[in-house]
């Protein structure tokens, strides 16, 4: 795989609150799309060749969610499709559309309107394999807790390390206007935090939030011709490993490592994570950040160094623990943050001299699916 000739020329984000009762999913999508098109300086009716969303059936109370996508993102009567999955999978498909020549400019949208869903666990549980796993009656949090217990046991990390993750993530979130759950409480976990399923505490889990993010991608040739500010997509890869309950590894996120290796090869990264200025890593649960970091670093020592502030800046947005779990839009939010940072628009959370970034995603329980994107400016 070679380095793609694709860049990000516009981003837009809207919502980012635990609940947005005043607007619908479609209005939320419209707001983010309008901001992204303005940021990219394009007319979607004329200059976007293909529209893509990452939504998955049932979260909006809809079957075939694809049908309700085109109007509010300017795609009616145009090539529109859904790539159900996290935003990195969507990003990869957008990159391939551009590289194939079928499109020069692609708009990629992801959203969460989780607050509309009365029983989120019921939707999550429907994702479990129906013959062998679902009948066991374990919810997503129970599956996550079992993985957390195994990970902590095998990795040598402990609950105290999860507390540090929580404290740092939420503290960083206080500098991010999109983060609803930022806080400066010392020791991230309240002593009264309920144990959902041992060892998982309620605080270890990112709370759901509503948001929409739109990213506009273009070929580098288009960006050059139209003189747009561009963030290069140097590498993008995604994949699935066996979930731990199907015989996969709990100590290690195979999907994260394999995606990183493929993306790093495309981007020609020489020194692994050490080559990067900032990383935005999935932290839907506190232990997942540790697991993902170890999987990207390949050893606990390097992971611990990053946690202690050496190497790339870790989750300057505050991550999902501070911003909220945006379901399939979570990865696009990380991408949004990385783009802002690389453009020097991170305001009071700006990472100094940020020229390169990594974004890593995970689709959540019960999957072992995720991806990695590597971005840069000024290369």
């Amino acid at each position, binding site marked *: 795989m070679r380095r793609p000739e694709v860049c990000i020329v516009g981003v837009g984000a809207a919502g980012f609150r635990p609940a947005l009762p005043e607007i619908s999913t479609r209005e939320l999508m419209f707001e983010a799309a309008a901001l992204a098109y303005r940021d990219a300086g394009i007319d979607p009716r004329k200059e976007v060749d293909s529209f893509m969303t990452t939504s998955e059936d049932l979260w909006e109370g809809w079957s075939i969610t694809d049908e309700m996508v085109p109007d509010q993102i300017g795609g*009616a009567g145009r090539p529109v499709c859904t790539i159900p999955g996290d935003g990195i999978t969507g990003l990869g498909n957008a990159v391939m559309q551009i590289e194939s020549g079928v499109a020069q400019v692609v708009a990629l949208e992801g959203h969460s309107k989780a607050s509309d869903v009365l029983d989120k666990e019921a*939707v999550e549980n429907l994702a479990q394999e129906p013959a062998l796993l679902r009948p066991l009656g374990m919810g997503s949090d129970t599956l996550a807790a079992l993985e957390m217990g195994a990970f902590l046991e095998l990795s040598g990390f402990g609950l105290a390390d999860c507390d540090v993750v929580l404290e740092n993530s939420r503290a960083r979130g206080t500098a991010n206007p999109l983060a609803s759950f930022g806080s400066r409480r010392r020791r991230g976990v309240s002593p009264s935090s309920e144990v959902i399923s041992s060892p998982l505490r309620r605080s270890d889990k990112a709370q759901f939030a509503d948001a929409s993010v739109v990213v506009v991608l273009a070929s580098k040739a288009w960006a050059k011709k139209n003189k747009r500010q561009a963030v290069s997509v140097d590498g993008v890869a995604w994949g699935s490993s066996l979930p731990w309950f199907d015989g996969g590894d709990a100590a290690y996120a195979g999907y994260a490592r394999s995606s990183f290796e493929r993306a790093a090869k495309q981007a020609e990264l020489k020194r692994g994570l050490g080559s990067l200025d900032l990383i935005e890593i999935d932290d839907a649960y506190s232990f997942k950040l540790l697991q993902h970091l170890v999987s990207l670093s390949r050893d606990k020592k390097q992971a611990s160094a990053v946690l202690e502030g050496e190497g790339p800046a870790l989750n300057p947005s505050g991550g999902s623990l501070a911003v909220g779990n945006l379901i399939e839009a979570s990865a696009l939010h990380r991408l949004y943050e990385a783009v802002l940072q690389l453009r020097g628009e991170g305001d009071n959370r700006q990472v100094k001299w940020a020229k390169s970034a990594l974004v890593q995603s995970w689709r959540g329980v019960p999957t072992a699916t995720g991806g990695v994107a590597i971005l840069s400016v000024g290369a």
Partner: protein
Amino acid sequence: MTRNRVAVIGAGMTLFRRRLLETGRELSYEASAMALEAAGMERREVESVVIGSAPDAFDGVHMKGEYLLEGAGGIGVPTSRVYVGGGTGVFGPIGGWWHVASGLVDTCMVVAEEKMSPLHPHPQYAFWSIFDHTLERPLGVTLLWIFALEMRRYMHVYGITEEDIALVAVKNKLNALDHPCAQLGAKITVDDVMRSEKLVWPVKRYDVSPPSDGACAMVLASEEVARRYTDDPVWIDGVGWNVDTQYWTDRDLCYPEYLERAARMAYKMAKIDDPRKDLDFAEVYDPFDYKELHHLEGLMLADKGGAAKMTREGVTKRDGDFPVNPSGGLLGVGNPIAAAGLMKVCEVFWQLRGEAGRRQVKKEANRGLAQAWGDLMQVGTVITMRR
């Protein structure tokens, strides 16, 4: 200009039946194993997987792509699910096409699966939830109702009769008698269609394809890889897709403009100036018999309102001047939504390779087209292929 030419080098298909005992994963495995065997390729040589499946509600599994990926061979390689409702079956190979055409991978396994039977009391219930919860669901509409409206509008504008439309069901069910995987092949008459149970006027039971379970798969490869596996690759030379507004009440249902736009996209890529002349046959989406006529017109393979005449004159029969749905289509082979669309692309592949057996069209077939339709009567997906 694409980086890679994309070839189809193998295809596979399970039986299409109501209430198959195999799980969705097993169906995906079976279809992909057949496609690999046909291609002479091993699973470890597949660099990427694209999964197509329509609503999660059918299988009763959320994130259906995740559920199917083990069966489809998606562990350890980049796997994507692509989705445009009922148009997904033809969109799967379009997604596979951009994987390979991009030059980022050289091979892609495309798998489409649908298992409609688990939904009780009837698969139609899954369609309750496809309507807008504020504007449409309170009206109590069903999918059959809105298709009846579209069929009626089409008949009214062009003066088409129910008997004209019934000829499509007669033709396709007859064609399906020669398909070894078909669910509803039959020798029926126009009278049989006319006398079948009225569901929502003018739609009658024999106008409609059945609910089905099944899976299809195909292997796509770059030219360099394809040449290593076969001397007879079939090239994908045009792809197009288009999604119209969700607000179907704002459209004139007599003509599928979204399909014309999708077709124009594909024809431009394939350098097809006169589709009726440049193409030799077509697999057109026919979940209802009137849709074959509607789609032939949207694809510009017939004049507006002219597809019924083509059918009456026998042009679209398997031994006609322009065979349409030589497979037997959804009306005869069955309609496991996404798998049904991919079945059409598989049929084009088999026809172009001369491997369609008793279904082989009589005329020399060098170029063919497959098309599907979906969402809320708003998606057109088109793929053109050539030897």
